[in-house]
């Protein structure tokens, strides 16, 4: 799963990271600088003390007088000198000549004492617990590099001041970091995040179909350009939708006109059929000449076919309009099917086809009674039409699903190819063009499909191929609002 990270959060993280690293490196640099200058004070002190000691050393270089001198210097000095070592270079050996505290001398200073014979240098800063700083200072002028002093200062107070300063510095930099982060975020929020949220909201509203949405943003940057582009796009879309709506109105009017035309045409076509439908059966009955009788039968069949065609076309046109109203009732499915089977019995017997209703008694569905009967009638008629009359079988079954009922009508007929299945619900399509009788107008399945769709159901067909039978499935809602 993709985790959602808001733009604000990402920007906050970046700003915090950048400002923190900048501010803290500056602070650390500053602290480092301060401690270096702090240490230099001790280097200078060491030089001064060394110079003072040189005077004593030149006068009387004795083991007794020197410590006394050191003591007097130590007394004068405000900073507490912990110890002083005096190194003397004789040939290649370094000798610790005098010391206020010889135990402090660990004998490992040879190298840096040599280095420092002409240069003052900090050689050791002890841990923060002891807070001592050890400085080597040259004992004599540069012409004689034989002496060096090592001073160890106790620096507790001074270090505390330095630490306090560092803490203050950290606090100040922390506060300024805080202020910096907030002001940068405030700026980013107003210049980037807020416009982006505006874009997002506008796009959402726009997507919902409100094409009047515009982004009221004017800034001289890429976001301003983006807003302009969005607004131009919105205007164009609005215009094209208006055009489409106009076309749609024209189309709707044309469809209405077409439906009205078909309705009128159907009505007008029914009237001239009346004498044919009304009188041809009588003529057939009363005609004595068998040849004439045969002619009349053909005429009658064609008149009946014409009638069926007109009725089905009218019905299809009617089903296509939204105006048609269905009356939904809770119907017992199995009983409805039984009723249709009863009306279709003569046709089934004539074609020597048996039919079985396998629908459980307790299934109900919401449908318009007459329309549902028509659906079953059409599907049974269709199954009979494509099942050879040598003992074919039709079975009707149903399964209850969560929200709907699925009904299946299976026959043992001639089956369908995949191409035929695709076209089976098309108007005037006949799977077998040789089938041509009064029941075979080719509109039954189109009408059935429309009825099912008006019930919010689906219909589809299946077949295992030629001569392997066909199954028609349709679904109807199990529950529904009773409209009207």
């Amino acid at each position, binding site marked *: 799963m993709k985790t959602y990270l808001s733009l604000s959060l990402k920007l906050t993280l970046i700003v915090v990271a950048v400002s923190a690293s900048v501010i803290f490196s500056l602070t650390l640099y500053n602290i480092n600088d301060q401690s270096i200058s702090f240490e230099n004070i001790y280097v200078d002190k060491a030089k001064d003390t060394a110079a003072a000691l040189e005077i004593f050393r030149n006068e009387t270089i004795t083991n007794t007088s020197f410590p006394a001198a050191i003591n007097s210097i130590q007394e004068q000095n405000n900073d507490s000198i912990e110890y002083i070592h005096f190194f003397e270079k004789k040939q290649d050996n370094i000798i610790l000549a005098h010391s206020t505290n010889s135990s402090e001398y660990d004998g490992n200073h040879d190298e840096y004492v040599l280095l420092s014979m002409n240069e003052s240098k900090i050689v050791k800063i002890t841990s923060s617990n002891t807070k001592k700083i050890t400085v080597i200072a040259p004992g004599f002028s540069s012409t004689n590099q034989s002496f060096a002093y090592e001073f160890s200062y106790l620096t507790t107070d001074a270090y505390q001041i330095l630490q306090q300063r560092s803490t203050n510095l950290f606090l100040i930099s922390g506060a300024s970091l805080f202020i910096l982060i907030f002001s940068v975020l405030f700026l980013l929020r107003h210049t980037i995040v807020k416009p982006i949220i505006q874009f997002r909201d506008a796009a959402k509203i726009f997507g919902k179909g409100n094409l009047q949405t515009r982004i009221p943003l004017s800034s001289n940057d890429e976001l301003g350009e983006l807003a302009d582009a969005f607004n131009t796009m919105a205007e164009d879309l609005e215009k094209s939708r208006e055009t489409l709506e106009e076309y749609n109105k024209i189309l709707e009017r044309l469809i209405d006109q077409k439906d009205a035309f078909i309705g009128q045409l159907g*009505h007008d076509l029914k*009237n001239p059929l009346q*004498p044919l*439908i*009304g*009188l041809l*059966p*009588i003529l057939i009955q009363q005609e004595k000449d068998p040849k004439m009788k045969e002619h009349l039968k053909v005429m009658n069949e064609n008149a009946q076919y014409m009638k069926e065609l007109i009725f089905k076309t009218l019905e299809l046109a009617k089903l296509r309009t939204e105006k048609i109203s269905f009356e939904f009732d809770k119907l017992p499915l199995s009983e409805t099917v039984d009723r249709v089977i009863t009306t279709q019995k003569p046709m089934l017997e004539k074609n020597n086809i048996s039919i079985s209703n396998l629908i459980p008694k307790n299934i109900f569905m919401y449908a318009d009674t*007459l329309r549902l009967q028509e659906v079953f009638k059409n599907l049974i008629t269709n199954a009979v039409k494509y099942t050879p009359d040598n003992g074919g079988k039709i079975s009707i079954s149903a399964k209850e699903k969560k929200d709907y009922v699925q009904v299946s009508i299976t026959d043992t007929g001639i089956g369908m190819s995949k191409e035929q299945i695709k076209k089976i619900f098309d108007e005037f399509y006949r799977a077998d063009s040789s089938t041509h009788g009064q029941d075979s107008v080719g509109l039954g399945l189109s009408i059935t499909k429309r009825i099912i769709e008006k019930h919010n159901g689906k219909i589809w067909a299946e077949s295992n191929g030629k001569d392997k039978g066909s199954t028609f499935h349709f679904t109807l809602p199990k529950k529904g609002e009773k409209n009207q």
Partner: protein
Amino acid sequence: MKKIMIVDDEPGVLYTVKTGLEALDDSYEVITVESGKECLDHLEEANPDLIILDLMMPGMSGWTTYDKIRDQEKWQKTPIIFLTARTDDIAKRAGNFLAEDYLEKPVDVMVIKERIEKLMNKNKEK
């Protein structure tokens, strides 16, 4: 003699039913009228045993004509068969009428004859 009155604005329907019924059975006499008003005007004079009434007529509709016929005591029991071009008109008032009361156009005269005989026999039994 069975006197049938047929009310329809379509001459084709009037012709078909009259010719057909009279050809099928000599005992039928079919009186044709072209509107609801004409039907009510000639009702007394024609004195039909059964009325075939078109529902969709200009001027007075079949439903109005039906109500006006039934308003008169003499014609309250006379069988009436409705003719209609649209079954959904019937569906709207289906609660009031039985399926055997109406026929859909275009009608087969032999079917009309069957229906007439069925209704007239039923009336006799009463």
